[in-house]
């Protein structure tokens, strides 16, 4: 059998990913995580001296804490299998990437294992986040200087 012929056969046999179902599940779970995040945020605003602007930090740490508990009990990967991007895109997904790597590499010691591999998955998120933030700011700065938009 020729390669092209086989690739044809492979295309026919392999089921297409259920895109619509995946999107719907990601939307629901992602939305649920964000709703929980909003609730946590409101909790900090109402019961502590945080404003909408400053409540972000404690909210993010709380959600990451939840993600840590779920990851530690092996539940986050189950949510991830169900929700896909819905649980990967919110900050809890970032926490999961960091924490799962930390648990995984604990057996290689604290410095070379955990320390060296903590950002194995999340490292590129941090890097490209910072880089894209820099360029977005640069573009806006240029636009403001020219006078197209204002801050």
């Amino acid at each position, binding site marked *: 059998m020729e390669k092209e012929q086989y690739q044809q056969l492979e295309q026919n046999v392999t089921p297409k990913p259920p895109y619509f179902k995946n999107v719907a*599940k990601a939307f*629901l*779970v992602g939305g*649920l995580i964000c*709703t929980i995040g909003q609730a946590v945020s*409101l909790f900090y*605003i*109402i019961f502590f*001296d*945080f*404003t*909408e*602007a*400053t*409540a*972000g*930090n404690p909210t993010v740490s709380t959600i990451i804490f939840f993600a840590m508990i779920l990851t530690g009990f092996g539940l986050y990967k189950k949510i991830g299998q*169900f929700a896909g991007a819905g649980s990967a895109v919110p900050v809890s997904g970032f926490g999961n990437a960091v924490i799962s790597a930390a648990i995984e590499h604990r057996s290689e010691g604290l410095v070379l294992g955990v320390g060296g591999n903590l950002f194995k998955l999340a490292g590129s998120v941090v890097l490209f986040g910072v880089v894209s933030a820099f360029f977005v700011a640069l573009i806006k700065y240029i636009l403001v200087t020219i006078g197209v938009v204002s801050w």
Partner: protein
Amino acid sequence: MKLLGMMLPLLVSLSLLSGCGEKEKFIVYGSPENEKEVEAILKEQKYVDKTTVIQYDNSMLVAVQIKPWDKWKKAKLEKKLQKKFDEKYPNKDVFVSADYKIFYEANKIKRDQVEDNKLKEKINKLKKLAKEET
């Protein structure tokens, strides 16, 4: 699918909860002077959803909540409103905030009928809070 079935009633109840909050949209607490005028200014602004205004001595705290889609421009609208009030009442110390925390606390002040001597202290604290950076 099981999870979906569990989540659906939750989502429905959440959407119901947010649907029944049609209360007073414009609230003023403190001295009732130029109440009508302030209300008129705020009602003119299409992006303002709910407001609570607290007046005391020569100061005014204007806590507003901006309509969902306009929230993208929250900082800008806040500034615009501040400017408007500053122009209208050059002799008054007006503080405008669109932050939910300020709005929530302003409503609390009104509900608890905070007395004048404590009011000033509380408002100053709120002003400080609102200026806090992350």
